[in-house]
């Protein structure tokens, strides 16, 4: 094999993280070593000096939704609260490789959200206008401008749902999901956080309204604070602490094609026809669908959902008809009633929750990690996640993103 010549960038460090046994006690235990859990651990250590932390993981690091998403990053959400947290996240993305000293292949190639109906157009323009007032880069493109950004989109009026325009966020893009997880893991480990794999939580002990510790497949762990961060299985975990969450878990499917020469320069999303497409650095098309309608914890979906998604994709990109699907898979996403996350305190003292991201969790990874760490460290929500409290489902102060982001996050 070719050796790196002198002067080449330094190779990968000789180790990434330890593989420790769990200690009997921690200040904070985070349940779930996905992107959010690892990011939370990192920011707890890096920004709050809390390092007596364990991240316990049922399987292997970042093997859940972090390994299964389509890696789209953007922040052009409609409501002020959503725009705030996602833009916070996007700003962190922009400096993340530097901060973590790890190449996450973050590529700001721009994200198009296509409009196919007058209703889409109105919603899109409204969102662009709102984004600009919130300081987020957003543009409204007419069909020809869409073709200028992405020449392979079929903008002819003959398609079943013609492209009438698109919102465009040039700062949006993609990153390499595994790298992001490994980068956070390595940095957190280096600051003393224990990443404990193959450690399934079997119970959460609550003593007089306050969390006391965990029971796990690798023994009991006492914990000053416990932070739930387990995406599709949030309801199961919260149930161990006696909490019932307003969450439904659905399969969400995605697929990749075989390798193609570079042909698709940006990210294209279309809520109306339930599809989103990008081309990864290596050359494969990465596509996602809407959630499967039924509720499930099984990480597999229905073929008809994929069929519908492909017919929509080919309507927009007829040139992909002969490309081959290499692999399909499903993750389990937890969906809240208003399609916005739940991130904050719970009725159990010192038990915190981060869930309900639906299909949009990946792009929020650094942002959610940083405000969740703040929430845990100060036992109070950060202003950016205050609107995403669990109580909003009893007070009614919802942050409904269905209109702007129901399907394709």
């Amino acid at each position, binding site marked *: *094999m*070719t*050796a790196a*010549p002198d002067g*080449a960038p*330094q*190779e*990968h*460090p000789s*180790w*990434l993280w330890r593989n420790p046994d769990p200690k009997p006690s921690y200040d904070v235990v985070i349940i779930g070593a996905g992107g959010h859990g690892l990011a939370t651990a990192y920011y707890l250590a890096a920004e709050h000096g809390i390092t007596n932390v364990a991240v316990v993981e049922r399987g*292997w690091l970042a093997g859940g939704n972090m390994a299964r998403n389509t890696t789209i990053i953007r922040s052009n959400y409609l409501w*002020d609260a959503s725009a705030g947290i996602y833009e916070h996240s996007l700003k962190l993305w922009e400096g993340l*490789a530097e901060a973590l*000293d*790890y*190449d996450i292949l973050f590529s700001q190639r721009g994200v198009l959200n296509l409009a196919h109906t007058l*209703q889409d157009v*109105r919603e*899109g*323009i409204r969102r662009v*206008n*709102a984004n600009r*007032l919130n300081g987020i880069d957003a543009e409204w493109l007419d069909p020809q401008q869409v073709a200028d950004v992405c020449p392979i989109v079929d903008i002819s009026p003959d398609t*079943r749902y*013609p492209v009438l325009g698109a919102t465009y966020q040039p700062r949006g893009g993609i990153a390499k999901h*595994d*790298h992001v997880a*490994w980068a956070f893991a390595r940095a957190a480990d280096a600051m003393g956080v224990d990443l404990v794999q193959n450690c399934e939580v079997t119970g959460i002990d609550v003593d007089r309204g306050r969390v006391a510790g965990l029971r796990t497949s690798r023994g009991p762990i006492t914990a000053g604070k416990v932070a739930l961060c387990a995406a599709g299985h949030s309801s199961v975990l919260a149930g161990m602490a006696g909490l019932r969450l307003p969450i439904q878990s659905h399969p969400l499917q995605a697929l990749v094609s*075989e*390798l*193609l*020469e570079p042909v698709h320069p940006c990210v294209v999303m279309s809520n109306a026809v339930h599809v989103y497409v990008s081309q990864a*650095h*290596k*050359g494969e098309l990465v596509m996602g669908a809407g959630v499967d309608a039924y509720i499930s914890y099984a990480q*597999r979906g*229905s*073929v008809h959902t994929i*069929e519908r998604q*492909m*017919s*929509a*994709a*080919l309507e927009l990109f*007829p*040139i992909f*008809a*002969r*490309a*081959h*699907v*290499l*692999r*399909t*898979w499903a993750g389990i996403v937890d969906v809240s*009633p208003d399609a916005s996350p739940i991130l904050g305190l719970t009725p159990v003292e010192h038990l915190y929750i981060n869930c309900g991201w639906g299909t949009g969790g990946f792009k929020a990874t650094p942002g959610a990690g940083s405000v969740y760490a703040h929430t845990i460290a100060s036992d109070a929500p950060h202003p950016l996640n205050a609107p995403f409290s669990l109580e909003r489902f009893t007070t*009614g102060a919802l942050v*409904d*993103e269905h209109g702007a982001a129901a399907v394709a996050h």
Partner: protein
Amino acid sequence: MTAVSARTGMTLRLEPQPGEVIDRNRPLEFTWNGQRFPAYHGDTIVSALAACGERIFSRSFKYHRPRGLLSASFLDPGCTVQVGDEPNVRGAHRRVEPGMVVSAQNVWPSLRYDVKSVNQVVGRFLTAGFYYKTFIKPQRLWPAYERVLRRFSSGGVVAKDSAHGYYDKRYAHPDVVVAGGGPAGMAAAVAAAEAGAAVLLVEEEYELGGHLRWGDAGQLEALRELRAAVAAAPGVEVMTNSVVNGRYDGNWLGIVQRNLPHVVERLVKARAKTLVVAPGLIERPYVFEGNDLPGVMLSTGVRRLVNLHAVKPGQRAVVLSANPEGDAAIDDLARAGVEVAKVVDGRRGPTIQRATGSRGVQAVECADGTVVDCDLLVTAVGWTAPTALLNMAGDRPVYSERAARFLPSLLPDDVLVAGGIAGDGPLEQLTEHARAVGREAAGRAAETARSLCAGIPQIAERRAGPPDPEPAVALPELPVEDHPALFFSGTRGFVDFSEDVTAKDLIAAAEEGYDSIELVKRYTTVTMGPSQGKLETVNAVAVLAAATGRTIAETGTTVWRPPYAPITLGALAGRIFEPVRHSPMQPWHEAAGATPLVAGAWIRPDSYGDPAGEVRAVRSGVGIIDVTPLGKFDLRGPDVPELLNQLYVNKWSRLDVGSVRYGVMCAEDGVVLDDGVTGRLAEDRYILTATSSGAATVQEWIESWLQTERPDWRIHVTPVTTAYASINVAGPRSRELLGRLVEDVDLANEAFPYMRVRVGRIAGVDGCFMWRIGFTGELSYELHVPASHGLRVWEALLERGADLGVRPFGVEAQRILRLEKGHFIVGQDTDGLTQAYGAGLGWAVKLDKPDFAGRTELVWQSRRDDYFRLVGLQPVDGSVVPPEASQIVLGRGIAGRITSSRMSPTLGRSICLGFVAPSLTGPGTQVTVRLPDGGEVAATVMPQHAHFDPEGTRQRG
């Protein structure tokens, strides 16, 4: 490169072979990288090229190493080519056709010649772990890195002007699907069919037979008998060049069929009662230095090439054989005139060290130190069982030390295995076992059919599925023979050819801390290439196991995911995206030059060229609009009022026969879901209407209530949207016009007042109903006529109203009319957070009803006043129309938005509806509207939504 002529090109073609699949009477020509090549019908692209002496068919993904034939099958990683506009074609599988234009992929800088500087120029990007490598200070390096990566992308090409292929879908309901048409699959299919089952036999290759096809005379004879048995068996449908791609819950199988004329691919969606998995075994490559050089081949690849395509694979060979199949390859080589320079017996200790050469094998260094010159190295070290379908069925195959491969562990009842995936044995034993499996599959299918029918009294007695099986007998067990555990030699070579992952990469990954096979897979991308691990998985696990000091069983495998083999996006998409809906009056609209509007599934007239004129016609005389897309539901039964009370926020208990009422529907979160009128036509018959775009949602919502919440309600719902053509006749002269057409209804205001419904005959058409409502704010009648007479009534209205100045109007005019009147549109003037009170619908919400959808949230909202509200707005400068979706700002924050805006032809000024913050709702309040160009205009909040005739006198007249 020398030009190859069609006459003398096939220099490596052998004399006719007993089992060859080429037709020497049908020569053809095709092009490869722009040059003409000869071939025979039956050749694969690569066998034809190999017959002409070509040895390099691609460059590898990462290191751009030359790659040639390995397995001579669909899985061959080095034989992926571009055929015309079709990327990533499996060149060792796809049959060559006359005039085919084939080119190499990933050829930068060129297919045949190394450019020495390539690796030096980009060496920093090519270190082990290349693709996922970490760099210090990556921000600085990233742009260069991305450029290089892009240049190294190595896929096929899709072009924007690609011809659209024809793709197809089919549903199938066979009793038994047999995946794999080798000897075991054929035997199982025949046995199942003879037991009465309808069988679908699916084979990846172009013909049935599996490894028998390249066997000796006895095996060829056995093949002939098996093929004859399949042909003779009743009820076996054979699909060749097709593959079972995925197994889902309930034995729902996705099958890709490629053997149809004029169809690129067809997706067959089969619900099998029993699945028999009989894919045979895949020969495993051996890991050693130089194992990817052109000229290093698997024994099955050599045997396919010699016996099926009559191509001489080399001149001088070294053979590493550890099994009888490898020994048979030695005989084949001898028969093909290849000098077998050395045979290394892998069953007897050390094997080979490395292969050397530049653009192909030139020598092999054996473990005993001898170096043998050769241009062909054949390995036969063992087998991989393709357990993907079993994995998808929930099975977790277990590693057998003895068999040196994974075997099934715990299969669901509706999945059986036959052939090499199940165990070992001579042909007779394997086919005998397969026959027993086939009979059992038929029996289980019959059992399933019976249990499916048991709950259905009408057909429980009828026979469905195959007849009763013979009394159950235990399935025979197949033995597992001793196979040598040969995975890698003392040197490090390629584990994954298509991803360019070496044993060294895997060992490095383990040392860096990626000790789980799943992490190693993601870090190195091993097994993530086009063959999805079918060649590589066991070797990868074996290398990682050795590196981490564990056994193969402890290390485990990664999860196999669908599809088993690549499927085109086209086949998944099929032919039709979504149907288009038209009203019966569409031909008239088109003839009249209407501008079409895509409104969900419907195409309808946006205008007839002059929306303002159309508005004036309605305000001053009479206009007609086609509102057929309006959702319409015929509700019958005594409990309809209960349903209406549940669905709508207002009350329905006292809706008299002959009356209609406007209703507002909210979701459970109190958000406005839909609105529309419902009329009571008879004692137990109601017609409910929904918005055009909301009709489908409303239907699901109704069914959800009836099917899951209140199945006890006695209600029958029939969607009748397209059963009626709907026409709104609006304007001060609408009564006069209708009076000329309606025969048996008294249209006088006292006899047929506002918000009433009447049934009658219009323009000679019976079975019509009409109601007096007023979306436009004018006196108006909405006519619903049987769809087949829609055009007739439409034309009659225009003809009989000509002297009244009747004009057709489109959706745009209707939008202006309703905006003048201040009527909101659900979804345009409301959004996902608009609860009923915010939309100004508090008057309709009856919280004293015990329950209705959304009540809990609306009770909450009724006690607060912090929500944005829908208001009428007029720009201070009446000549400015702020675009819809403009934001209303207060200081630096968002304080509302314009939801609808138009220039009003009636008022001669701009008018709007919009949402504003609670502090801005007072009539007369001036708000600031931010225009898209950054400018601002002032607008005044009006006392009510209606800009025109707020008292509503016109519509009641």
